[in-house]
């Protein structure tokens, strides 16, 4: 083989491998597009919580149905992403997964008032919570960012609940967010996106505290509780 032939062979092989990667990316992009769209639908559906108490449980039901759809999408992703390449393509679904973590934990909080664990959120999406050997999993960072987004939404909900005359929910939210806040404080975060996002949590906390204060000083707090 001449040196030119050798180069042709070498580069021909590269092309094959580049093509394969391109194809995988294309597939990932297409799946993510659909799954992302579902997440926007859920976001819209859950907006109702801010102006209609009575519609909340129905919204949760719809959200649950749509999570099923997302679950199917994630199972497609799992198939498409080669084992070991999770982090190679992570950026494609990172932001979307954070939104799902927020949406799922919000739904579960609305349903039962409890914190959705890492495992629970992962299982709703049908993926592993642990970073096993090469598997497709729910990255801890993404889960935590989702929780922080949940807190922001809940601080908004505290405000709107009061407007609606529901003086109970702010207290419930206050307790929940304070506990989460304490949890986050246990973490020794490095100086990255998660840390910055956490630093903004204090604004949500302050907002909620002031709502509870407004109720408290006007004697509007439900009696059984003393915050």
């Amino acid at each position, binding site marked *: 083989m001449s040196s030119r032939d050798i180069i042709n062979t070498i580069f021909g092989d590269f092309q094959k491998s580049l093509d394969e990667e391109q194809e995988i990316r294309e597939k990932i992009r297409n799946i993510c*597009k659909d799954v*992302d*769209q579902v997440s*926007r*639908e859920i*976001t*819209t559906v859950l*907006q109702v919580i*801010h*102006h209609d108490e009575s519609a909340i449980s129905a919204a949760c039901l719809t959200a649950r149905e749509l999570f099923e759809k997302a679950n199917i999408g994630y199972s497609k992703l799992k198939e498409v992403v080669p084992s070991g390449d999770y982090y190679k393509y992570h950026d494609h679904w990172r932001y979307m997964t954070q939104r799902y973590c927020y949406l799922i934990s919000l739904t579960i909080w609305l349903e039962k008032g409890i914190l959705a664990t890492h495992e629970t959120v992962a299982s709703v999406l049908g993926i592993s919570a642990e970073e096993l050997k090469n598997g497709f999993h729910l990255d801890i960072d993404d889960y935590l960012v989702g929780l922080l987004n949940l807190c922001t939404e809940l601080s*908004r909900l505290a*405000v*709107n609940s*009061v*407007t*609606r*005359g529901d003086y109970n929910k702010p207290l419930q939210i206050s307790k929940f967010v304070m506990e989460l806040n304490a949890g986050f404080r246990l973490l020794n975060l490095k100086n990255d996106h998660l840390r910055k996002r956490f630093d903004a949590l204090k*604004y949500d906390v*302050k*907002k909620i505290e*002031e*709502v509870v204060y*407004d*109720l408290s000083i*006007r004697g*509007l707090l439900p009696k059984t509780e003393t915050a």
Partner: protein
Amino acid sequence: KSLSSVAREAAISLPDDSPVLQMFKVAAQKLNDRQDRHERLVKLSRDITIESKRIIFLLHSAITIESAEIKINEANERLQKLIQGPIKSIGLELENSPAYLHSRAVTAGFQEFIEARTFCSFLEKKLLISWSEVQKELEYVMEEKSVTTMLTQSDYMLGLADLTGELMRKAINSISSGDSNDCFESCQAVKDLYTGYLGLFSIDRELSRKMSTTRNNVFKVESAVYALKVRGGEAPPTLLLAAQPDWERNNHSDDEGFF
């Protein structure tokens, strides 16, 4: 022999006129026409921007309900002048040219116009005017011909995003003019618009960028209704609104855009 002497011979042998030079002269004319047109459009767009901003201020200036009606009428007249003036000129300017080529020249003016137009219609009828309705207003039938000024749906949506800022201002101002109903309606419109934007998919970067402002407007307007309820002792009819709580006080820039 030097390089320049060699070069001079080549330069001198150039024909004074040739098909090639002729072709470039034609090209020069085309490029100049484009530039000139673009420049005229930029100027028209700036005119529209300024007048639209002023119309919005006018609509905010009313303190009482009676004065509001007068202001709305004046605003409508001035909007008509815009439509029959610079906006029509844009349509005529682009009558025979590909409009998207110059979309960057006119987008600022169009967005601000939409903001003013939709704000006015919301105050007048408590309803938003849709893109196709606005577009219909920009059809001009003249004696010899008819022309439509193309205002893209994208510019419309960008203007609508800015509208949330004006509605938020309106809502908060409504409280101190003692109109809690107005406040409620504006608040609900801002929330509905925000929900609408949240559901959009595959939007471009410019619209995404406006989302964070829109989001802040929602927070501000919700805080206002909240204050009306908890500090103002007022129960929402189905829903109501009132003042900037303290967690908002550090962020005072409510506006978007340049001008």
